[in-house]
């Protein structure tokens, strides 16, 4: 029926007005019908007319009201539909906003190791536009966050398990490697054992790289730490030593820089993976060329192979893999037959800001360029031994060389030896007191003092040209043969004296026997023979 709130006064008048016409017409018709009729019939006509008029009036009023009520209801209906549509649109908008803004923000927050409750507090409640989120939506968001949190926790624990297993393998491999190195030192004199040890060592290094790869894919940083800077050459050799076919790798013109300790391990690993790819996907008889040049942004390490050219599609795929890995790879994405290399390189590149690109090589194969940022490079002294090897322990002061030149008698007459030219002053300059040191009277304490804390101090030289080492604490045992060389002026003479085996009394023990043997056998003096005094034989016997 008509609503109460509809304005009655305004509506009532039209009702009366609309009802008026049929009522008047009916009344008129009744009147017109009553006029010609006479007597009792008139009264009946009038009554019937009056009744009909009343009925018409009632009907008119009722119909009119009905119609008006309907109109009002339709309007109401339309308004409600509009309201509902608006509400639906708002919901849509809200859902969209939820999925496009709120949830991503919340998940980001969640990934930053916040609990779902914290995320709700920080993201939803802190934002005025989200604060009066409907309860259902709130519950939905919380539910989603909870599920994601659980999944993340599971993935994390899976990765942690991965990493911890890899770490254990790494630890074993590392220990094994250092033990192998000791064994290699120990069995160095037995080539057969040594070669076998090298083979085991190589296998161990391959296992180590695999463990490193697993750890890196598990999101961990490389475990091995290098306390000091290591020369780039050593780093690249380290990378070589971790791949199967290291013999096919050629290092050319490697920039003489060192890599800071923290970046050594990742660089070795990344280079090893790239070298592994290069050697694996090129024919076995081809070589892999490695160069490292300085560029504006750091050092560009180029690894070129002569293998089959990477098709454009394959190149794109590899680059994709790199990019994916840089964006953070999932273990699932590694696929059925995991080709870990690129993923590992991508990971490392992301962690350490290395730039990697794959291009067509001039040799027809692939050229991988790895750019090492400048802050990983140091040009300072690299204590890591490197090309090293032994750069620290060789007789680095020219004092030694000059001494050798002059103590070792120039016996080889068949060959002009540069060493026989005598002490060169320029060589001796780094030594505090070159002149006395270079002179024949070579007091052992002075020599050892000049050499600082160098461990291997060659203090004495036998006549046979063999050095005698001894610890610095003891008195020079060989001082008995010093007088022979004590006169600097008589140096050439002294040298001649050496040749002639002049002073039998001053000769080291053992030489007399040799001289005797030669005399007995009539063997002409062979330069090679002179080197073999008895103590040399004793050394040889230790073998």
């Amino acid at each position, binding site marked *: 029926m008509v609503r109460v709130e509809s304005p009655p006064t305004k509506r009532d008048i039209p009702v009366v007005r609309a009802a008026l016409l049929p009522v008047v017409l009916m009344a008129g018709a009744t009147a017109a019908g009553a006029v010609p009729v006479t007597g009792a019939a008139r009264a009946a006509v009038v009554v019937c007319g009056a009744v009909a008029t009343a009925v018409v009036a009632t009907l008119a009023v009722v119909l009119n009201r009905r119609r008006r009520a309907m109109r009002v209801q339709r309007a109401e209906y339309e308004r409600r539909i509009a309201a509902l549509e608006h509400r639906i649109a708002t919901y849509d908008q809200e859902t969209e906003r939820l999925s496009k803004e709120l949830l991503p923000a919340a998940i980001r927050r969640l990934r930053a190791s916040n609990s779902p409750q914290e995320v709700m507090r920080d993201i939803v409640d802190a934002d005025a536009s989200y604060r009066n989120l409907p309860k259902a939506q709130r519950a939905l968001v919380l539910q989603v966050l909870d599920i994601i949190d659980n999944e993340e926790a599971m993935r994390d624990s899976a990765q942690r398990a991965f990493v911890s297993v890899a770490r254990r393998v790494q630890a074993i491999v590392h220990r094994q*490697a250092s033990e192998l190195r*000791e064994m290699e*030192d120990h069995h160095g004199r037995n080539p057969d054992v*040594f070669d076998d040890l090298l083979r085991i060592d190589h296998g161990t290094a391959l296992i180590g790289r695999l463990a490193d790869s697993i750890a890196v894919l598990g999101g961990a940083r490389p475990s091995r730490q290098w306390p000091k800077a290591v020369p780039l050459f*050593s780093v690249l050799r380290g990378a070589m030593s971790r791949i199967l076919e290291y013999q096919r790798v050629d290092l050319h013109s490697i920039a003489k820089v060192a890599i800071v300790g923290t970046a050594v391990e990742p660089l070795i690993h990344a280079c090893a993976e790239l070298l592994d790819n290069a050697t694996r996907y090129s024919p076995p008889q081809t070589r892999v060329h490695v160069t490292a040049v300085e560029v504006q942004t750091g050092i560009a390490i180029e690894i070129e192979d002569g293998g089959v050219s990477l098709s454009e599609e394959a190149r794109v795929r590899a680059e994709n893999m790199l990019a994916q890995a840089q964006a953070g790879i999932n273990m699932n994405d590694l696929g059925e037959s995991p080709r870990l290399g690129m993923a590992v390189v991508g990971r490392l590149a992301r962690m350490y800001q290395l730039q990697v690109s794959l291009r067509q090589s001039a040799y027809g194969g692939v050229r991988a360029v790895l750019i090492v940022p400048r802050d990983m490079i140091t040009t300072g002294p690299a204590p890591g031994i490197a090309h090293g090897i032994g750069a620290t322990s060789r007789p680095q002061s020219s004092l030694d060389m000059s001494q050798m030149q002059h103590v070792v008698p120039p016996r080889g007459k068949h060959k002009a030896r540069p060493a026989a030219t005598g002490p060169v002053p320029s060589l001796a300059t780094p030594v505090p007191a070159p002149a006395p040191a270079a002179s024949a009277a070579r007091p052992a304490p002075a020599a050892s003092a000049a050499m600082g804390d160098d461990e291997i101090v060659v203090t004495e030289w036998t006549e046979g*040209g063999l050095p005698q080492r001894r610890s610095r604490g003891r008195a020079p045992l060989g001082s008995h043969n010093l007088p022979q060389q004590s006169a600097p002026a008589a140096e050439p003479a002294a040298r001649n004296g050496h040749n002639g085996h002049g002073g039998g009394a001053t000769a080291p023990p053992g030489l007399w026997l040799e001289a005797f043997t030669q005399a007995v056998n009539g063997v002409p003096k062979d330069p090679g023979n002179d*080197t073999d005094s008895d103590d*040399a034989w004793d050394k040889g016997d230790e073998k």
Partner: protein
Amino acid sequence: MSPPRRERRKADPAVSDPERLYVITGAPDGERAALDLVTMVVAQAEPSPTVQPEQAAILRLCKAPLSVAEISAYLSLPFSVVTSLLTELLATELIESRAPIVRAALPDRSLLEAVMHGLQKL
């Protein structure tokens, strides 16, 4: 329980380096020249920039004759590594080695002493 260990020269962790010995040596099955610990080695040429750093170091060291044992000690590389490096250098004639006399080529020491005593008694 770890197995009993022999006393070995401990590698100094401060100077540990990433490269393994087989990278320096080359092929593990490579032929080795007959070199002894006391074989004397002399460089015949200046190190060229293309040789391996260790070989360059050997060439620098061996300007004056050095025994293989000494080279091994100075480079702190095991004897077998040094011999394979030297083998390569020998093959390219950058160094020359002087083989020690074979012991059997000389009469036995006791025999010599006997002869000496005999001579002294004359």
